């Protein structure tokens, strides 16, 4: 066993992970099919920007266009189920609406399913699952959980499903982990293909990497908020996704854009009102001025974002609703460009 491993020139990989990652082939300037015509759409962005809502809205939109669609969550938080006001779905493909399914991808369940598909001999499978060492190894192998999660996403997107009597989907939408973790997550297959140089995982990891970086079939949508930090982070994220991971970035959705309810002249009148009045009139004038100020600064962020990213930027309105539910997601679905 030792002789197998020692053939690897370990020192060649000394300076960070980027050296042993083969450079992604980036098909720049090539026409790409429209977002929902792809087989896989990865929705990504900074924490708290509304990724799940946008993922569900994309799902609703695709489903309404007659595409059989599944929305996948990978964080076991079941935010999508929450939007649908549905009980936790777990590692099951559950139908939420006509043409729209949802699944929460658990890495342990994915690992189990993967092993079941790999090992045809029942006795071997049983022994493996009973063995504590197997669980230990699986938990300790860096990136394996992420890899089997991406493996499951890939499996869902296959027309020829590996899972027995698996449903065929036209589109798989992934609510990806937040930025930072997100880029690492999508790089897992390439990293893994480099670590495990032989064996079934090596070739499967390469398949997954090719799938993720296939601009024809896989796309990403970045979700941003019209604020300083999220806009900065979205610009950096687009660059990382294109240059480091090598995926196609098809859209940037600027979520939560306030309407421009007041004009500049009106704001001046309201400022005067806020000075001279009391009670409700004053409070209302102040709220209007806040709205005016935010709408203005948000538009500055919007133009900064448009200048800073290559992908088309589409805006989604802020919804003045206490909690976002499926009705809110449906409203956004109608506005997705």
């Amino acid at each position: 066993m030792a002789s197998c491993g020692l053939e690897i020139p370990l020192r060649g990989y000394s300076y960070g992970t980027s050296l042993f990652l083969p450079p992604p082939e980036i098909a720049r300037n090539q026409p790409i099919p429209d977002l929902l015509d792809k087989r896989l759409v990865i929705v990504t962005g900074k924490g708290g920007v509304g990724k799940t809502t946008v993922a569900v809205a994309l799902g609703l939109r695709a489903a309404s266009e007659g595409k059989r669609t599944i929305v996948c969550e990978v964080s076991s938080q079941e935010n999508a189920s929450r939007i649908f006001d549905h009980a936790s779905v777990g590692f099951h493909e559950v139908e939420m609406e006509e043409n729209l399914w949802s699944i929460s991808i658990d890495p342990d369940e994915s690992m189990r399913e993967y092993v079941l598909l790999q090992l045809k001999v029942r006795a071997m499978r049983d022994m493996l699952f009973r063995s504590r060492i197997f669980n230990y190894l699986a938990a300790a192998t860096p990136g394996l959980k992420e890899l089997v999660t991406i493996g499951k996403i890939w499996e869902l997107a296959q027309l020829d499903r590996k899972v027995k009597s698996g449903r065929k989907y036209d589109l798989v939408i992934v609510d990806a982990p937040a930025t930072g973790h997100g880029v690492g997550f999508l790089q897992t297959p390439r990293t893994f293909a480099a670590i495990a140089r032989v064996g079934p995982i090596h070739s499967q990891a390469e398949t997954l990497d090719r799938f993720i970086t296939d601009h024809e079939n896989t796309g990403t949508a970045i979700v941003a908020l019209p604020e300083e930090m999220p806009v900065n982070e979205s610009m950096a994220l687009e660059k990382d996704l294109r240059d480091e991971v090598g995926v196609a970035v098809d859209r940037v959705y600027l979520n939560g854009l306030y309407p421009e309810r007041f004009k500049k002249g009106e704001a001046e009148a309201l400022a005067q009102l806020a000075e001279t009045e009391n009670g409700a009139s004053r409070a209302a004038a102040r709220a209007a001025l806040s709205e005016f100020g935010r709408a203005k600064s948000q538009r500055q962020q919007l133009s900064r974002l448009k200048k800073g990213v290559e992908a088309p930027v589409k805006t989604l309105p802020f919804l003045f609703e206490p909690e976002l539910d499926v009705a809110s997601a449906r409203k956004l679905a109608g506005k997705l460009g």
Partner: protein
Amino acid sequence: MASLGEVLDGKSICICAGSGGVGKTTTSAAIATGMAAQGLKVCVLTIDPAKRLADSLGLDELGNEARRVDPALIEEQGVEMKGELWAMMLDAKATFDELIARQAPDEESRDRVLNNRIYQQISSALAGSQEYMAMEKLFELHTEGGFDLLVLDTPPTRNALDFLEAPKRLTQFIEGKSMRMFMKPTGLAAKVTGRGVSVALGIFKKIVGFDLIADLAEFFNAFSGMVDGFQARAKRVNKLLADPETLFLVVCGPQGEPIDEAVYFHRKLVEAKLPFGGVIVNKVHYPADELQAEVDDLPAALTEKLGDANLAKRVADNFADYQALAERDARNIDHLAGELRTSCVIRVPYLDEDVHDLRGLMEIDRYLFATAEERVEMAAGRA
């Protein structure tokens, strides 16, 4: 209602925890600035500050070491700086490398670890290593930095649990007791382990590829001289987290989802017997409670005052939208306070402008460090 100044009194570590996107970095920087202004030597450890926030602190080259913020910058904002404000941006990989250098018995062992591919993966990519290194740096600064107070902006974990379990998980991985035993190619271990294990190992190797297992074996061998040091250190880090001089603050937003996560995180802190100090709710829409009665005839009143029925209607509609959000926020925060059974719930309003500079931090400090009476005034919009 306890104020932030009261709960932080006598504390030497303040850990701001919460899910992503709730304003943890800004809150941490505002707490550090406020406490430094009051006369303490404070250092804020942050993960990823907005470039402009770093710029405004005069820290364009935030490296993996603490740098002092020029007090003149803070005094320019009309605040007297009685203490010292320091800041650093955590580089998880560099911190891990430093830790290895510190723990390695000799240069050869150090290089073996640093050059190992598994190590390179876990030090930069493995979920949890960033969290672990944040606490490692915290420990180092606490024992060697000479600060009165350290404020830690925790990494944005989606699952709050990860953050608390990171040190344990990582040390368990590094220890790899049972695993190392199975990976020795020869020796007593191979003889005493049963056939089932070796078959399981064989299948696993077949699935993931041979060289990965060998790399793991190499990794554990390289680490073998450092395990004791790591364990001892992890124990001291854990002890520090549970120390009465440490305080955990939960940071959240007023929407349902961040509130639920704050409740969950609080429960985890209590279960882990870690010292919870209070909760900070950012971007709160302040309700105008006492105005509710008047709202009914607002459009008419506004039309009279503005002389423009269309504008008056838009102003009234906008106000109604804000009031609805304010009522939701108040409801959610009541629920939060009840669940957490804490008297320290600090609301920071949704300010009209993004906070990304010292001026913004000072504005936030007004709310963070307000006394109970001041807060009542602020809530009523009179301050």
